[in-house]
């Protein structure tokens, strides 16, 4: 919950003290009541001198209270003598005054950074005090994301926010990161939170041009073009209660971001800050290779992929690689070459990567107007040759208060990014050419100092073919994406009188992407003839919000605030994809240079929502709060009779330490809260009526087909309900603070596509069915063991546990496939089972659980049916940040861990199956797989001896056979085995982030305009241990081949994670 910096702590401490003081005064107030008089006065801002409207003016112990009017004036009558008057206002230090001698009082209130931070921006930009929240909202300090050698905003959040699950994709620059709040709530649709930037939804789509199982790129998602340097505040609305006002898309939680440029404060003066960082990166987890055996099988040399050949000590030469000898005969004067290891061959495929980030931001203004500007540039060169991500951002915002009392503000930002990278996926799929096909498991004797292309620029591989040389692939098979995003918004607000305020926001967020996927002539993909895929995607989102806020005065104890509003949202997507095949001439990558073209996609969709909503908050004496919301949506995507739907929420909080006047030495502050909400959600556009699709011509004849998915004319909205209960406690003068939340979220009657058997005629049908539940606990704990003048030590821990279960499907359906990944392993939904659990092929076992062994081969027999083989959802996550400050130095260390969650890994399977790591080094032995003989014709049936007894396996196999089996119905433990053997428990411990910062003494620059200089060193992903993967594979389960999609726990030759070291400078003027 708290992302506090040192400053914050101090302020919080003061706030707590005041709370006690206040309570004490209230109690004391009862004992004195003598003479009375009337008071009038005016409250102004100490800093700007402007009058402050809406300040609470309370005479403690008397029940007397009022608010200042638009001109900052207030009046109170019959105030008892000896009373004190307290003034409180959001964003200002509470002020307490004795009664004046006369009848008038002038008060200047001081701004309070501490109090400001207690204001939480909730749904639709509504600000509430932390106390008043009946649900959990995490505030992220933007400083926690910056200058940490991590250019990705979401990755920067890892280990820092309770209740949030962040998973990386590929380890190459710009690759999408998946964020999830409190689990998956949707079967197939997007389960990622809604991201709202300056009041307008910010599309976070991952545009997938080519299937990521068979050669797609490390695609980024929309949030990548958000400039982290421009973030002024980030609030994570985790639960439905917090997000209910956003309606339809809030069921996955909401991240509310306010940019610096879009929220410039109207304060005097100007601030300029410069941030600059440089980091270097490398692969975090090279496997440890064996260098004793080269290519071949069963200790015999062959020009193979696997390193199961003879020991280097036993053979001194091999025939020269035929492809190399043909391409460069001059390099191979004799028929044979030395048989020796190239221990560094895998490392030689990569380079050192660099990340450069520079940003300047400027804020300034006066009491009437302000302007904010942020400009940033990121240049990230990945460790894979030709992989990079460049981004430039400019954000500008301004606000002004007009003389008629109207506040207007506007913001505009432009982002442009360019991502360059290769292709990934499962190389075994026909027509695929993964750049990581063999990269991490090169045969140990392959000499990688040799060229990767022949004299004509065609790829060369040691064993002829089967994959593209990784360096050739990096150079020629490229996936380039340009993205542009324009965000523009206007806001106006106006106080009609002291208790009615109008707010209007209109914004547009347009993201457009154009991508070129080039497969060069000579690649194993595209039949070796070359291919160009052009993808153009544009998403425009328009959002209009009109709010009327009414805060009438009821009496001194109760404060009521009511909001009614209207929201109109429109989303439009256009997407065209064109494929050109067979380059006419090599090296020119245009459609015109291809001899066959196809319009693959020409997609358009538009949807609209109109919402009307109300929100009422009642607070009692500033310690008890209740909030209720109701919203009705009308969606264009639902059938006319079902398009209107209504959903309410209610939440409340009680600061019980205030309410019951609890004073103790150990408990400073205590608040309990509870919330319940229901959120409705509509369908995707065009889900009601079936359409035909037009196919490419065949033999020159036009043709069409019915679609794979059958639509339904009778869809209804789906609903998610959530109950959450939480508490915030502070102990021993804030030596320890804890925030605990339990939630139970249930989504029912989901609009989803149900997988139907092919025999029904369709692969899927859109319908309402099923249920998903997420139940979990979030704990945020801060402990401050040392707090002295010079040394401060703070430990901040977060704990997230979420249980994501599919509660029901539809009548008679046992399970449905969540996505088609590859044969033998796919994610599934099944009632009572974890969301998207992995189901795949298993080895047959007898009734006692013994493995059944084929007596002929000595390998395990594959069962006919697929079974549960893994649950990709982690059991829990823990992050612990230690912050130690000593004078001008500060040290931050973040450890985190993920317990459980299974992963299917092609990388590990290949490392083992190809015999390249030290795991399989000791191989001059044979093995007997423990089990009993079984009948390969009838998997599951053991073979019996004459006496009717099972026969223990005694067929020995080699180490080679243990990890590499021929195809067919029996298999061993790695290549060509049942997929259950490639599933590993993905528990991982990690030293995520280390930062050492130093604030230069002011004396150095006190004659310059510089206000502060901070330098820091940062390290990222410095160490990890995933104990349940084979030891020498060093596998880091924090990769995922499917980026920001719902398919998790599957790694298909993904690019490994990175380790970075950086140096950062931050100068403020």
């Amino acid at each position: 919950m708290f992302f506090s910096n040192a400053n914050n702590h101090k302020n919080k401490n003061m706030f707590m003290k005041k709370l006690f003081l206040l309570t004490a005064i209230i109690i004391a107030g009862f004992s004195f009541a003598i003479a009375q008089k009337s008071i009038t006065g005016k409250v102004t801002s100490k800093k700007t001198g402007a009058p402050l409207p809406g300040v609470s003016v309370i005479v403690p112990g008397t029940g007397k209270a009022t608010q200042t009017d638009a001109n900052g004036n207030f009046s109170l009558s019959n105030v008892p003598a000896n009373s004190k008057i307290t003034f409180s206002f959001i964003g200002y230090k509470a002020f307490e005054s004795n009664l004046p001698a006369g009848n008038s009082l002038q008060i200047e209130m001081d701004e309070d950074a501490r109090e400001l931070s207690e204001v939480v921006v909730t749904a639709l930009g509504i600000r509430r005090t932390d106390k008043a929240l009946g649900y959990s909202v995490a505030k992220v300090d933007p400083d926690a994301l910056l200058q940490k050698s991590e250019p990705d905003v979401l990755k920067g959040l890892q280990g820092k926010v309770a209740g949030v699950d962040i998973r990386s994709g590929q380890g190459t620059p710009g690759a999408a990161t998946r964020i999830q709040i409190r689990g998956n709530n949707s079967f197939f649709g997007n389960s990622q939170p809604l991201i709202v930037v300056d009041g307008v939804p910010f599309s976070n789509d991952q545009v997938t041009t080519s299937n990521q199982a068979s050669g797609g790129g490390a695609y980024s998602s929309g949030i990548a073009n958000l400039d982290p340097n421009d973030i002024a505040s980030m609030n994570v609305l985790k639960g439905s209660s917090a997000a209910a006002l956003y309606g339809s898309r809030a069921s996955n939680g909401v991240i509310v971001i306010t940019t610096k440029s879009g929220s410039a404060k109207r304060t005097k003066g100007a601030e300029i800050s410069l941030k600059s960082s440089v980091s270097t990166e490398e692969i975090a987890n090279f496997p440890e290779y064996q260098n004793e055996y080269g290519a071949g099988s069963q200790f015999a040399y062959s020009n193979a992929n696997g390193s199961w050949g003879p020991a280097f000590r036993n053979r001194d030469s091999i025939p020269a690689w035929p492809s190399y000898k043909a391409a460069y005969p001059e390099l191979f004067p004799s028929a044979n070459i030395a048989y020796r290891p190239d221990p560094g061959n895998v490392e030689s495929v990569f380079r050192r990567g660099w990340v450069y980030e520079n940003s300047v931001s400027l804020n300034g203004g006066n009491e009437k107007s302000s302007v904010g500007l942020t400009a940033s540039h990121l240049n990230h060169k990945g460790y894979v040759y030709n992989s990079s991500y460049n981004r430039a951002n400019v954000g500008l915002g301004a606000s002004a208060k007009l003389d008629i009392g109207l506040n207007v503000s506007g913001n505009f930002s432009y982002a442009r990014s360019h991502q360059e990278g290769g292709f990934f996926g499962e190389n075994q799929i026909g027509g695929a050419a993964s750049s990581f096909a063999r990269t991490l498991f090169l045969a140990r004797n392959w000499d990688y100092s040799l060229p990767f292309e022949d004299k004509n620029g065609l790829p060369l591989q040691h064993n002829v073919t089967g994959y593209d040389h990784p360096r050739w692939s990096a150079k020629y098979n490229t996936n380039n994406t340009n993205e542009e995003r324009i965000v523009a918004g206007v806001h106006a607000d106006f106080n009609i009188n002291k208790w009615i305020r109008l707010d209007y926001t209109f914004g547009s967020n347009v993201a457009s992407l154009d991508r070129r996927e080039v497969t060069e002539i000579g690649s194993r993909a595209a039949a070796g003839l070359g291919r160009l895929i052009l993808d153009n995607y544009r998403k425009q989102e328009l959002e209009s919000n009109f709010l009327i806020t009414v805060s009438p005065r009821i009496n001194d104890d109760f404060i009521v605030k009511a909001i009614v509003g209207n929201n109109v949202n429109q989303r439009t997507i256009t997407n065209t994809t064109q494929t050109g095949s067979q380059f006419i001439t090599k090296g020119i990558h245009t459609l015109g240079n291809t001899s066959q073209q196809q319009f693959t996609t020409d997609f358009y969709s538009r949807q609209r929502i109109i919402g009307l909503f109300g929100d009422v908050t009642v607070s009692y004496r500033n310690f008890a709060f209740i909030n209720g919301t109701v919203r009705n949506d009308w969606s264009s995507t639902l059938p006319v009779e079902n398009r209107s739907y209504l959903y309410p929420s209610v939440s409340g909080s009680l600061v019980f330490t205030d309410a019951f006047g609890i004073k103790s030495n150990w408990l400073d502050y205590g608040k309990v809260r509870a919330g319940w909400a229901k959120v409705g959600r509509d369908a995707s556009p065009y889900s009601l009526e079936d359409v035909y699709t037009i196919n490419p011509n065949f033999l020159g004849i036009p043709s069409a087909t019915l679609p794979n998915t059958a639509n339904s004319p009778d869809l209804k909205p789906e609903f998610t309900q959530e109950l959450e209960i939480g508490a915030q406690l502070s102990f021993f003068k804030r030596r320890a603070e804890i925030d605990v939340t339990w939630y139970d979220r249930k989504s029912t009657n989901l609009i989803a596509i149900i997988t139907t058997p092919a025999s029904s005629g369709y692969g899927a049908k859109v319908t309402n069915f099923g249920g998903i539940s997420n139940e979990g606990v979030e704990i945020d704990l801060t402990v401050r063991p040392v707090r002295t003048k010079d040394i401060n030590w703070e430990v901040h821990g977060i704990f997230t546990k979420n249980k994501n279960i599919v509660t029901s499907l539809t009548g008679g359906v046992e399970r449905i496939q969540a996505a088609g990944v590859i044969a033998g392993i796919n994610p599934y939904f099944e009632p009572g089972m974890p969301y998207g659990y992995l189901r795949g092929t298993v080895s047959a076992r007898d009734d006692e659980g013994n493995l059944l062994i084929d007596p002929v081969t000595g390998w395990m027999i594959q069962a006919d049916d697929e079974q549960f083989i893994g649950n990709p959802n982690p059991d829990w996550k823990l992050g612990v940040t230690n912050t130690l400050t000593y004078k001008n130095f500060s040290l931050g260390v973040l450890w985190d861990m993920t317990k459980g969650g299974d992963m299917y890994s092609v990388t590990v399977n290949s490392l083992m199956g190809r015999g390249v790591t030290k795991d399989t080094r000791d191989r001059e032995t044979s093995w007997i797989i423990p089990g009993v003989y079984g009948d390969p014709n009838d998997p599951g049936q053991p073979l019996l001896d004459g006496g009717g007894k099972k026969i223990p396996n005694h067929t020995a196999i080699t180490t080679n056979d243990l990890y590499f089996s021929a195809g067919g119905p029996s298999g061993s433990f790695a290549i060509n085995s049942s997929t259950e053997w490639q599933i590993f428990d993905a528990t991982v411990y990690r030293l995520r982030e280390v930062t050492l910062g130093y604030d230069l003494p002011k004396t150095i620059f006190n004659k310059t305009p510089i206000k502060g200089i901070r330098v820091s060193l940062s390290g990222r992903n410095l160490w990890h241990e995933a104990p349940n993967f084979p030891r020498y594979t060093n596998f880091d389960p924090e990769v995922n081949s499917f980026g920001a999609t719902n398919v998790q726990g599957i790694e298909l030759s993904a690019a490994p994670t990175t380790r970075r070291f950086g140096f950062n400078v931050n100068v403020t003027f």
Partner: protein
Amino acid sequence: MIMLRKIKNLIPLVALVSASSCEKNFLDINTDPNNPTAVEVSKILPTTQRTLGDALSLDENNGGLSNVLAVYAHQMSTREEADKYGMTGADPVIATPWAKLYSATANPGTSFPVYGVLQNLEDIIKNATEEGNLRYAGIAKILKAYSYSVLTDVFGDVPFSEANKLKEGVLYPKFDDDGAIYDALFPLIDEGIADLNNTTAANTLRPGTDDLIYAGNVARWVKAANTLKLKLYTQIRKVKNVSAEINALITSGNLISATNEMFVIPYGPNGATDDRNPGFFTYYATQRSNHVSPWFYEILKGYNPNILTGNPDPRLPYYIYNQLNATQASRDGNQTEYRDGPFVSIYFGSVGPDRDRTQQNSISLFGIYPVGGKYDDGSATIADANSGTGASPYRLITYADRLYLEAELIQAGVITGDVTAKLNAAIQESFKQVDYVITQWVKPAQSVPALTGAAAVTAYINKVMTEFAAASAQKKMEIIMTQKWLSSVGSSVDQYNDIRRTGYPVIFNPGDPAMAPGGFVQPPINGDPVNPGAQKRVPVQLSRTFALALPWDQTELESNPNAPAQKNPSSYKVFWMP
């Protein structure tokens, strides 16, 4: 107060804006402007025909049934799951044809266009019948019958009566008894013929070039339909007396009776669109897994000691393309498992050390006739996407097939006739059809000599007929079925049916001590030019016994609660098996 009044005016205004916004115009935008809700049946027909071919083809990329069945019929060998009869229902080579046959569009995600047959056929039948365009309905019914006959033959019980009825509310079709499905196919074909012959129908839309098979030629469709019936009756002859029905068909004279009447799915070259036979994929596959079976090769070469011994088949360079020449070392720098001069392959059931060695640019491939690949003129070049046009059709039933069916029926005593003449005609037609396919569709860039009339062909046929004349009744049946098997290379569904129905041709059995003494097979001892006189014998094994049916698509079983448990392919019998 003035302010308050303003507000009072404002609140209804907001409500008004929203209410009027809810008006139809603003929210009634949920119609996809880019895809049609209705198309003419003539646009759907080509999709179904082409996809039927794809689903049955040798396709090793997206999966065609022949990719498995050619291995089970021992014309192809592979390292993939089909080896040792190990195919499981989880394999895409089963799942994709299953989905192609039943669905409207099979699950996307593959690089190749994947559409569906039966759902689209049902759509044609429904719309064409409503519109009175009965020729389309007739063609669709015949294609539907053909598709179901294949599904039943290879899988046994399959969804039929409740299949393709999702729009009528059946999400999970039951599996029907295979015999009952067959019973329903004959009337379905008759309905199709009746629709084609219906002269009172409006037929405002008549099939033309959109009918890829017969370009709307009704007479040929009727012949194809009748020949399909002949095939289906022959298929069930062991469990039912079908003499009367078959005699009636033959007497009618309305069967496929000429080379150009063959019932095939045409393919084209890689032109404006990629129209190639999916079996051609091997030519540009990144990892070639379709090997030509040594068993098949040896019979073609006349090496098999039991049949056609010493009678080399002149179709060899049309059937098989060798990337190597007779003396060249493996281009991949690896030891071969099976080598006979230019011919390189691996054995079915092999567990030999050289089986898995890369031979990408050295193995022999199916040639110009089965897949539109390269005619083997001895050039010994590496096969690639430019080695052929890929424009060879997938043959459903040819005139030669009809003649072989009759020869089988005569030999089995179901009908009467001169079996020798029938077999001779069938073999002659088989050679003729190779020439026809190459000139009519493949249209190669290289020059390919004609088989018809070649002396070697005459010599070959004479020798076969001599062997036939001397053979026992049983051997006669073996020769008929073996010739049919040789003739139908590339279209393996009927080969698999024939083997299960008649036991012929004899297929390689690694467990048979006569074929693999001591569990070893011996490639031609001097076949390897690199190590003459030293070609190693190869250990072979079987994991499972011969599969009597293919396992059902596992995805279907997983997603259909009305599906049975997965079968044991080694013991599951299709109803027509004795």
